[in-house]
């Protein structure tokens, strides 16, 4: 499986896969949105405001997941010096950061009609904002530092330190009193979301994961080509 991510295979691999993934993603997101916006029921407390959940939750999931990958890739980069790992992390950062922003914005739009405010500095919201800032820092290092090895080292450290924030984000609602409610879906207990809402949520989550994968593959392909080109230019 790892062979598929190595440069020589990826350039042909992703062309065929990409078209298929795009069509699949569009279908799934379309079905998900129909359910999210129309076919799923309103919430007994929040009414139709709850429908923002179908975008907010998948976005949050991706924002955390991408940074988690980036953190692991960065640790392995610093220890094992595998050449493709920084390129992978680099390719995840843009889509992850956008979903972090989407999570914050949709959360804010959801907070106003439900909580009564656009923003609070509680642990969950503040740590998500910190995650977004780490994303920006990571992307900025690659953008503004010219030396590849230096950018690699600094961005890897940023990703690793930022990853320490991930358990804080996830457990903030359990560790401290927060305005944001606790998790409705956990590994250890029954979901507290009714199935008529849980199923559209899962559909949207799968669609969002596919979207992220597509953007990642497109970006990764570009990064590999850029890397090879730079290497060739340096040798000449």
């Amino acid at each position: 499986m790892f062979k598929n991510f190595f440069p020589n295979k990826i350039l042909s691999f992703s062309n065929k896969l990409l078209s298929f993934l795009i069509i699949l993603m569009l279908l799934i997101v379309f079905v998900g949105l129909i359910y999210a916006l129309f076919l799923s029921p309103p919430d007994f407390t929040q009414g139709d405001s709850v429908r923002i959940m179908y975008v907010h939750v998948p976005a949050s999931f991706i924002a955390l997941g991408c940074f988690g990958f980036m953190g692991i890739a960065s640790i392995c980069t610093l220890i094992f010096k595998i050449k493709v790992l920084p390129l992978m992390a680099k390719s995840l950062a843009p889509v992850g950061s956008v979903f972090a922003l989407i999570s914050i914005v949709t959360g804010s739009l959801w907070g106003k009609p439900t909580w009564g405010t656009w923003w609070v500095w509680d642990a969950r919201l503040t740590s998500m904002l910190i995650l977004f800032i780490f994303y920006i820092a990571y992307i900025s290092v690659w953008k503004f530092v010219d030396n590849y090895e230096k950018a690699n080292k600094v961005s890897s450290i940023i990703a690793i330190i930022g990853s320490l924030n991930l358990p804080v984000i996830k457990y903030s609602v359990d560790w401290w009193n927060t305005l944001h409610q606790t998790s409705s879906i956990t590994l250890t207990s029954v979901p507290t979301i009714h199935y008529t809402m849980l199923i559209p949520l899962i559909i949207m989550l799968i669609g969002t994961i596919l979207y992220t994968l597509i953007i990642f593959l497109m970006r990764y392909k570009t990064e590999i080509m850029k890397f090879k080109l730079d290497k060739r230019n340096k040798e000449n």
Partner: protein
Amino acid sequence: MLSKKTRTRIILISFLLVVSILVVFVVLKSLEENVVYFFSPTELYNKEDISFNKKIRVGGLVKDGSIINNQTSINFIVTDLNNEIIVSYKGSLPNLFSEGKGVVAEGKLKDKKYFIADKILAKHDENYMPPEVNKILKKTKE
């Protein structure tokens, strides 16, 4: 299998990670009072260094039947099923504010039993269900 260089790097990075985790833990623990968004009535009741001039937040459930609408203000009781505190507030309330539901009040303590709020936020829990299902649940509880 693992070169000496790699092994050194593993040790170094693991060490730095452990230290960073400890630092984060110590920082968060010491800042605890600023990280919590609100205190429950019980936490307020047990708090030793209470100041009646500082802006704080109390959160919990609105006690059933406790909402009293005066001409000048609205009074209700916030409970965490263990302790209670009376909250007085002037102003508009969020849509989701209601009996039996979560609330966070921001303001100042008049004394240990009385809180004067200048901002009210509704807090909803992690349960999501259609209204019909909620009706059925309520019926089976009675």
